[in-house]
C-alpha cells in the first residue's frame, strides 16, 4: 500500500477504513488472478477445459471486492460517499462516450477483442482521476 493510500485511509473513520482496506485487498487479489488468467489463456481460439479454471478464478475475489465496495458505499460517511458517487458517475459517462469511439476504432482497425479491455482500463483510470478531482474540490 502506498504512503498516499495510507494517508487517505487514515483520514477516514474506523468503519470506512475497515471497509476500504477490505476492498483494496480483494481488488488486488482480483487483479493478480485476472492478470494470471489473461497471460495463461492468451489469444488461443480453442480453449481446453482446464483453462476455464483460470477464466473463472478471478470471479471469486471480484465478488468479494464488489461486496466490499457496496458495503463501503452504504456505510461511508456522507462526504466520502458523495466523492465516490461523483467519481463513479463521471467515469460512467466517460466510458459510455468512449464506448462509441472504441466501436468505431474496432470497425476501422480490426476486431473487437481489445475493446472490452480498453473500456475496463479507461473506466478504472477515469474513476481514479475523477476521484482525485472530487477530493481536491472538497479539500480532502
Amino acid at each position, binding site marked *: 500500500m502506498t504512503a498516499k493510500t495510507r494517508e487517505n485511509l487514515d*483520514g*477516514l*473513520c474506523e468503519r*470506512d477504513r475497515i471497509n476500504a482496506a477490505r476492498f483494496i485487498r480483494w481488488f488486488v487479489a482480483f487483479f493478480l488472478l485476472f492478470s494470471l488468467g489473461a497471460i495463461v489463456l492468451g489469444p488461443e481460439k480453442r480453449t481446453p477445459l482446464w483453462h476455464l479454471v483460470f477464466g473463472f478464478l478471478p470471479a471469486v475475489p471480484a465478488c468479494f471486492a464488489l461486496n466490499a465496495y457496496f458495503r463501503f458505499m452504504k456505510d461511508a*460517511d*456522507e*462526504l*466520502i460517499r458523495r466523492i465516490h458517487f461523483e467519481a463513479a458517475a463521471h467515469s460512467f459517462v466517460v466510458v459510455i462516450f468512449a464506448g462509441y469511439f472504441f466501436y468505431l476504432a474496432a470497425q476501422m482497425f480490426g476486431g473487437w477483442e481489445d475493446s472490452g479491455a480498453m473500456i475496463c482500463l479507461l473506466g478504472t483510470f477515469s474513476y481514479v482521476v475523477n476521484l482525485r478531482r472530487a477530493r481536491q*474540490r*472538497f*479539500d*480532502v
Partner: protein
Amino acid sequence: MYNRLRSLRTERNWSQATLAEELGVSRQTINAIEVGKYDPSLPLAFSISKLFKQPIEKIFDPDKAGLESQQDA
C-alpha cells in the same frame, strides 16, 4: 454556506479528529465543512447543533454578515 464550526471546536480545545469521532464522521468531512468546501446534510447539521447545544442558524448561515451578527448577539 458560512459556519462557525472551527471557532466552536477550538473554544472547546477539540481536535478535528475528536469532533469527527463525536459526530461519527471522518476527519476529512469536518475539515471540508470548516473550510466551507462542503455543506453538511440536514441530519449532520442537526447533530452538530445538538452537540454544541446551539440552534442551527447560529452555527450555519448563507450570509457571512448574518453569521457574524449572530455571533455578536
